[in-house]
């Protein structure tokens, strides 16, 4: 448990760095640090599938970020600008929201105790019957590609949508002359 807490503190710290640092490249690298920490966390949480995917995806998304920043600029021109009254208002609202969020979160988790919960009916069915019903040793794969294959179809569709969206947005000319 303690290792996870340390990891999370590291993640939060790296996250704050990523948000607050002026250089965008450094910010993205800090984001990468958070992502790799998440991958390590997945291994600790007994989820090797997630860890693999997270590492690869993390690498790729950092590559995307860096590709964009290298083509443009890595200076955050908006940083260091003096705050306006409207910004202060935003901060206050956000602060109140955040406090309420954390408070209700604590109340919720106090009632839930998720780390010690029993496996649900559905999950235990997957564990005990999964191999017989789907033939896949890796239960995560059996869930992803058999029990919940539609989610996977949806997910590849999201990726497809993103690709088409990227292509659509980065067209050279939007309108005919």
């Amino acid at each position, binding site marked *: 448990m303690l290792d996870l807490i340390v990891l999370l503190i590291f993640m939060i710290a790296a996250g704050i760095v990523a948000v607050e640092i002026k250089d965008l490249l450094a910010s993205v690298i800090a984001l990468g640090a958070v992502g790799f920490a998440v991958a390590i966390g997945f291994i600790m949480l007994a989820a090797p599938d997630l860890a693999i995917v997270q590492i690869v995806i993390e690498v790729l998304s950092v590559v995307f970020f860096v590709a964009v920043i290298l083509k443009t600029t890595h200076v955050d021109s908006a940083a260091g600008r003096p705050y306006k009254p409207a910004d202060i208002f935003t901060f206050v609202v956000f602060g109140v929201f955040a406090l309420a969020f954390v408070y209700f979160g604590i109340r919720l988790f106090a009632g839930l105790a*998720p780390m010690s919960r029993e496996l649900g009916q*559905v999950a235990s069915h997957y564990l005990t019957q999964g191999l017989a019903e789907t033939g896949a040793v890796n239960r995560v794969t059996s869930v992803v590609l058999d029990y919940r294959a539609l989610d996977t179809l949806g997910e590849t569709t*999201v990726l497809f949508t993103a690709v*088409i969206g990227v292509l659509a*947005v980065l067209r050279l000319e939007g*309108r005919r002359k």
Partner: protein
Amino acid sequence: METFPVLLIAIPLGGAFLVPILYKAWRRLAEIVAGLCLATVLALSIYLAFFLVPGKPLVYLFGNWPVPLGIAFAVDKLSSLMLLIVSILAFFSYLFAIRYMDQFTGAGKFYTLYLLMLVGMNGVVMTGDLFNMFVFMEIAGLAAYALVAFGTKPKELEAGFKYMVMGEIASLMILLAIALIYAATSTLNLADLSRAFATMDKTPGFYFVVILLMFGFSLKAGLVPFHFWLPDAYPSAPAPVTAVLSGVFTKALGVYAMARILFNVYGFSRASSPEVFNALLILGLVSIVVGGLLALPQKDYKRLLAYSSISQIGYIVLALGIGNEFALIGAFAHILSHSLGKGLLFLTSGSVVYRVGERDITKFTGGLGKQMPWTSLSYNLGALSVAGMPPFLGFFSKLFIILGAVKAGFIVPAVVAGLFAVVTLGYLLKITNKVFWGKEGIKGIKESPFVMVFAMVCLVVLLVAGGAFFFWLKPHLLQPAADVLLKGTEYADIVFRIGTGG
């Protein structure tokens, strides 16, 4: 009929995968394929909407896994009504888009995204699984963000970015809520969740999740405190996309999902948890008032209509918040009438922009009705319907909403709903006066191409026919849909019974 739910997803999805390949070969073929997909979806959903037996939903088990194990689609009368509305508007907007998209490059990508948006909306409306709903929401959402930014002008890109930021915040809130719900219940199937929630204590944590969900769905629906993205996003998108966004997108992703989860999954009813319903009522009222008042001073044709959409969505949420039978019938009638009506109005904006190239109504001198008679006719009749003038469909929806409010004893909301119909008419007449009606028009403008006019006129016919046959529509479409919500968690029992083969 059993496989219809799959086909409603698979056909547009297959079309979306095919269109980019075909487009490289031959542009028209891609268009035709997209049109065929949309027409098939329309035909299937008409069949579903009218021939589905109330109380006997189609439960489609993906991979033949019984209910809580796999993903199930549960298509009841409510889903089928939404499907019908979505596919009607998607089809006619597509007809409109065939010529409208001449102005833009990359039509292949447009049709792909358009079909994907349809896939997303259909999926959200049919699915019986919470996480699956999120996935389809993301499909529809991403497609919508891309379509809003489709013109790639700076303004449009910025609107797309803004919309994306808001939409993704909403999605992440919903995902967080799903995680918390899973932590509490160990299941994701809506029917199963409904059973789990029934035995759960109503602690502050419980309501925290409800609030997260409502926050997410209100953002998607563009209700008032969360409406910032909407007036930028709607004017930026190409007109047929705006018609779909305003007409069905916010309703399928926001209002429908909210109604389904609050009524059928949580099993809330006005009697059992008035606080949730009062929140909806207030959200609706605030949206009606703020949206209506902000629409009045607008000068941009589409922006005015965008604010109007906020106001009209407020009516639907108000009706959900009232929560009795009449109000719910009114809510669904309003979803139907506002989809067709506001979709139509956005299409007329496209028609005007296509010919005149101008959206600022102060730059018009009136008289466009002489040169573009069909567009003008469509606009005027659509505006009357949206404002709730008899004998159009829009009248009956407002009638039932106000009747519901009065029956439940909410006199002030009833009066506000009535008065803001006048405000609605007021701002819509602004466009009539400045753009369409008047002595002399702009030189050298002619009516839009035939398919565009055809799409608009079809929607007008639907509005008029909907008004004339309202009392035939009511028992066949609206009443069963309202019953689904009114019966609350009975949904879960039915889905379980069918979904487990019992």
